[in-house]
């Protein structure tokens, strides 16, 4: 499952990609919203770990605009419920996460992101790589013409 609680912890690990490699950008996503149990104590403990600007921009990429640019000072129940929904209830079922620095693609299918190494991708993902290369080439060709 890719929910924003996981996404906010992920960073690109491609070789040599060590800066501006976070947050991964969502593209072509399919989303399902599922309710889950609200746990305010967990959220209060988790807030210091959150990279707030990344969470705000990523949630907006997923079409949710409920978070404000700044983390509010008052962590009241209304805010925690909003945060709970953003972190736990938006499920990205299909799509791609793209590194803002090196453009490495991490596909998500059936709710599971594939972060496996490029070697694994080469062995298992050749069809995927070939199609993304073709797409890129087509896009470039179109741009040029």
């Amino acid at each position, binding site marked *: 499952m890719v929910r924003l609680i996981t996404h906010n912890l992920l960073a690109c690990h491609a070789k040599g990609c060590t800066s501006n490699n976070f947050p991964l950008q969502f593209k072509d996503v399919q989303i399902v919203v599922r309710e889950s149990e609200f746990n305010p104590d967990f959220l209060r403990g988790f807030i210091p770990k959150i990279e707030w600007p990344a969470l705000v921009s990523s949630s907006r990429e997923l079409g949710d605009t409920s978070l404000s640019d700044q983390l509010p000072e008052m962590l009241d129940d209304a805010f925690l419920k909003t945060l709970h929904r953003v972190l736990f209830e938006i499920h990205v079922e299909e799509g791609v996460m793209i590194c803002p620095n090196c453009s490495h693609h991490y596909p998500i299918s059936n709710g*599971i992101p594939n*972060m496996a190494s490029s070697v694994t991708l080469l062995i298992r993902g050749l069809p995927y790589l070939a199609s993304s290369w073709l797409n890129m080439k087509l896009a470039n060709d179109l741009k040029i013409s």
Partner: protein
Amino acid sequence: MAADFVRWWTVRWGSCDARLSSSATPMAPPVTITSVDASSPEAYELANVHDVYDQIAPHFSSTRYKPWPIIATFLQSLRPEWVGLDLGTGNGKYLPFCPCAIGLDRSRNLLDIARTAGGMTREVVQGDVLENYWRPGVFDYVISIATIHHLATPGRRKRAIQQMLSAVSPDHGRVLIYVWAVRQDEQSKRTIPTTDSSQGQDVFVPWVLSDDQNRIFNRYYHMFADGELEELVITAAGEIGLYVGQGRQEGIEIVQQGWERSNHYVELRRYRVQG
């Protein structure tokens, strides 16, 4: 594509299935000694670990499971607001016992089971324990139960430990690692080809499908010698500049280590003195 690789490796390595089936009985077939092609441990693991798990995944029970005492105690000692990583989560059997944890595994088919382990939505990620896909030090704890014994060289097992140490908080991060031991207890159902527990041993452990006794899948394991896990941890930590022991500004403490139910385990804690 993956199936082609298995076929290629089977031809390349000689059919281990054929070797086993001659001695296979309706009971569990014996564990056999193997040796790793050091020139390509990655391809070796792909054929003898990852593809095997992908094929036998549906036969893994995802029903109730009770963690062993050391693991249960460790998980109960974690703070409820902590976030952890289960490296080599398999079918996710530990996820229901963890405070918020993300399960990581190479096997896509096992993850399809893990994503609803214990009847709840779980966070799972397909990936390699040799890589770190996370903001550095973002996790409060890491567990890796019965995973790094599937890595085919000492260097790769060491690197996996280094990734665990880097994934947890430098201030309080906790790590629990379990691996299979040469030293087996009397409850072990396996016949082991060696009893010299001072030497690690590379083996194939057969998995027989319950509905087709003729299909045997061999999984690669490195059975750890007595003391091997601790030594590996100390080398791994030293190489990334982490002192092992107490009393420094920053380092790793070995909280406990030992042997339980035919496994070696080690529990680690990172610490950093403030100010």
